[in-house]
């Protein structure tokens, strides 16, 4: 890990006109000998909805897990809203972030997982209110009021007192979305949030997400195989392979006339699978 790097320019000027919500700078991630991300650069603007596509094993989940601080970078830096995520400043140098720093920057970011990851020891409402009360310091009344609002928004008002295990996968995923939103994240990460669901439950979850994407300022970074959904909601689609950006474009362009052969092959494969 290159732990001592000089501060970059991007760090010095905080409130530039074109603010970046997410910035990957030459990010390297390895698992043993497997170089998953190889000096990856990309940025996401505030409020943007960006979809990541790419073949299995290309590192999409790894990118989201790095942002959620579930993994550590092996090189390069990640910034969120102008603040270093992977590193912190110490006497004009960048050093790897410690737990305290991670806990501070993590608050900007929320994540919805493929397998929902609801807490079985808490009922639906408590799943949503736990972190706002303990981390954001909200009162129970405040947190529960917001929790009920969010449950209504995802169409699950009547499930307030249910156990997660009593819900369908689609309902569990909508609770997980409400739970992530309750922390008021600036960035929401979605990792194949519908791929563990029965086909008839997918549409409900995607409708909720589309609703949130259009009605909030939240920046989205989304990994999905739902190409129609990606087309509908994305401002930009980034095609990855071998830990590098192959190409990126607005969805209309990338899905209809991709520039790279690799993208064309991938889209063909995905569309064949869907039929």
């Amino acid at each position, binding site marked *: 890990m290159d732990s001592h790097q000089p501060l970059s320019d991007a760090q010095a000027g905080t409130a530039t006109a074109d603010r970046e919500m997410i910035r990957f700078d030459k990010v390297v991630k390895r698992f043993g000998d497997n170089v998953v991300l190889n000096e990856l650069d990309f940025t996401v603007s505030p409020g943007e909805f960006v979809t990541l596509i790419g073949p299995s094993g290309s590192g999409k989940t790894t990118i989201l897990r790095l942002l959620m601080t*579930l993994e550590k970078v092996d090189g390069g830096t990640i910034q969120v809203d102008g603040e270093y995520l992977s590193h912190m400043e110490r006497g004009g140098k960048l050093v790897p972030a410690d737990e305290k720093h991670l806990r501070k920057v993590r608050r900007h*970011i929320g994540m919805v*997982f493929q397998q929902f990851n609801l*807490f079985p*020891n808490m009922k639906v409402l408590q799943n949503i209110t736990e972190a706002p009360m303990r*981390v954001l310091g909200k009162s129970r009344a405040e947190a529960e009021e917001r929790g009920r609002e969010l449950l209504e928004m995802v169409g699950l008002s009547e499930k307030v007192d249910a156990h997660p295990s*009593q819900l369908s996968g689609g309902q569990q995923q909508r609770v997980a979305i409400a*739970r992530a939103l309750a922390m008021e994240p600036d960035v929401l990460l979605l990792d194949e949030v519908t791929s563990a669901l029965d086909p008839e439950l997918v549409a409900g979850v995607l409708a909720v997400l589309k609703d949130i994407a259009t009605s909030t300022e939240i920046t989205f970074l989304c990994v999905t195989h739902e190409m129609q959904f990606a087309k509908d909601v994305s401002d930009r689609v980034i095609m990855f392979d071998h830990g590098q950006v192959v190409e990126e474009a607005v969805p209309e362009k990338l899905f209809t006339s991709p520039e790279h052969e690799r993208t064309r092959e991938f889209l063909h494969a995905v569309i064949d699978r869907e039929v």
Partner: protein
Amino acid sequence: MFDQIGLIFSTLVRGLPVTIAATLGGIALTVVLSFVAGLALLAPSRTVRFLSRVYVEGFRGTSEMVQLFWIYFVLPVLVGFELVPLFAGILVLGLNHGAYGAEIVRGAVQSVPKAQYEGAIALSLSPAQRMLRVILPQAVVEMLPSFNNLFIQLLKSTALLYFISAEELTERGQLLAPSLPIAQLVPIYVIELLFYLLLAVLITVGMRALERVGARRLGRRAPRRRSTPPVTAGGV
């Protein structure tokens, strides 16, 4: 004949309070030590993990009876401070079974899926909050069947207190035996066994009730009936 059974019964009953006190005290200490040592086995600090490992292996790997003799007979010589037999017994029962319990706690905490930690991290919960609010409430439910086994082992180990004259159930029987004709040994030991069995059943009933509460908390229908890994604490 019936007089004598009455005598045997009433004598043995007088041993029950000490056996019950030793069991409950031992269980309380076992639970505390299991959690402290079990979580210490998972601590980020190598030193803490090492110290806990020394405790666990030390008490699992040596004879419970010798431990008792150390605490009751040797310790007073070394530090000049003598423990009441009951407390010496509770201390040894707790220290010994706590070492087994530590492994139960460690295993149960590690059996909680990694996804639960990651869900808690994604909500910015602190390490302590993750453990106390998310991981342990799930892990505790997993621990209950193994603790049931361990507590029954502990109950049976209270017979060790005979050797330090704590006047518990087994000792009452042993003291009674020589005064009665040989034929009366059978009722003595039958009643003794029935008393231990009764106490063991009470422990199981209590633990099953806790299992049901735990299962309900986790939104499971009924406690999963499954074979628990045998916890073989040294019996007598």
